[in-house]
């Protein structure tokens, strides 16, 4: 059905009492003179009447029982979760624990080996390897001198 009259769109709100009094009066007068709109109006009214007359269905026999079973199941589930009540008292402790874990994680990350499998300390040793080797010699120089003295003797 085409809404070829400009007033046709106002028929629904007119039927539903959703038009201001002045607009409602205009539609009422229009309906008296426009066959097209009057046809729509009458069909809409007939459909509305049919819809309001559609018989109600009654809840089935097992409806209440099925509902309360679902209700109890949800309640039990809720009670199980409520043992892990994270809502109020535990929140500061959990927040503190989370902060500690985060801090420790960041610290470990900072000390973690880089892409070559070396720590920052390993890199320093590698860069000064020669000096450190010499340092070992210098550290044990007295032993070396003692050993050389014995061989000379």
């Amino acid at each position, binding site marked *: 059905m085409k809404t070829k009259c400009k007033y046709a769109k106002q028929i629904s709100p007119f039927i539903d009492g959703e038009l201001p009094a002045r607009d409602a009066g205009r539609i009422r007068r229009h309906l008296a003179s426009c066959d097209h709109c009057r046809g729509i109006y009458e069909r809409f009214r007939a459909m509305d009447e049919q819809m309001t007359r559609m018989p109600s269905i009654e*809840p089935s026999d097992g409806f209440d029982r099925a509902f309360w079973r679902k209700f109890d199941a949800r309640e039990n589930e809720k009670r199980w979760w409520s043992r892990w009540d994270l809502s109020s008292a535990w929140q500061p402790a959990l927040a503190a624990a989370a902060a500690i874990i985060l801090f420790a994680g960041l610290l470990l990350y900072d000390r973690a080996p880089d892409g070559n499998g070396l720590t920052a300390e390993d890199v320093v040793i590698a860069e000064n390897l020669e000096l450190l080797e010499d340092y070992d010699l210098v550290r044990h120089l007295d032993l070396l001198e003692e050993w050389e003295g014995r061989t000379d003797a």
Partner: protein
Amino acid sequence: MQTDPDIQIMLRCRDGDEEAFRILFVRHKKKVINFCYRFCSDRSVAEDLAQEVFLRIYRAAPKYKPTAGFRTWLFTIATNVCLNETRRRRKQAGTISLDAPIDIGKGEIQPDIEDPERLPDDQILDREQEVHLQSALSELPDRQRAALLLRITHDFSYSEIAGQLGCSENTVKTLIHRGRMGLSDKLMPYFKGRQ
């Protein structure tokens, strides 16, 4: 609004009174089942949806604020449950097979009636009308169907429906007008046949 007795009961429910919830359940279950039934055209699905509506009400109770009439709030939840369910079923049907029929009740519309052979002629005619109307309703787009049911069978105003569907009053006006036009088109042969 504070004089709405259901709001007072719901406030008791908010404070943990389970008996208050039982009162609301008993008082409104039939209306909610019928709304869901008219929406999805399947009795068993309608009862499941109605149960979900009441479970959501109970779950939402601790945060309940009486900003609208209880019935308006109840049907906002019922509308959302119905719209979500049809969307979910349609999506599910789409992921299983494009050829599979979408089970939102179409094709299985059968009014809950006694044996038609034992009914007088005018009642048979009424039942026949009901089947045609329910079938036409089920073919409307979901939001048009919801708006029409809320307006015509539950008597909500455009402003209340706008709140329930989360849209403007102008959109509601369009949904209802198009819904009525759609029904009229689908029922035209039937109207002509009876004239």
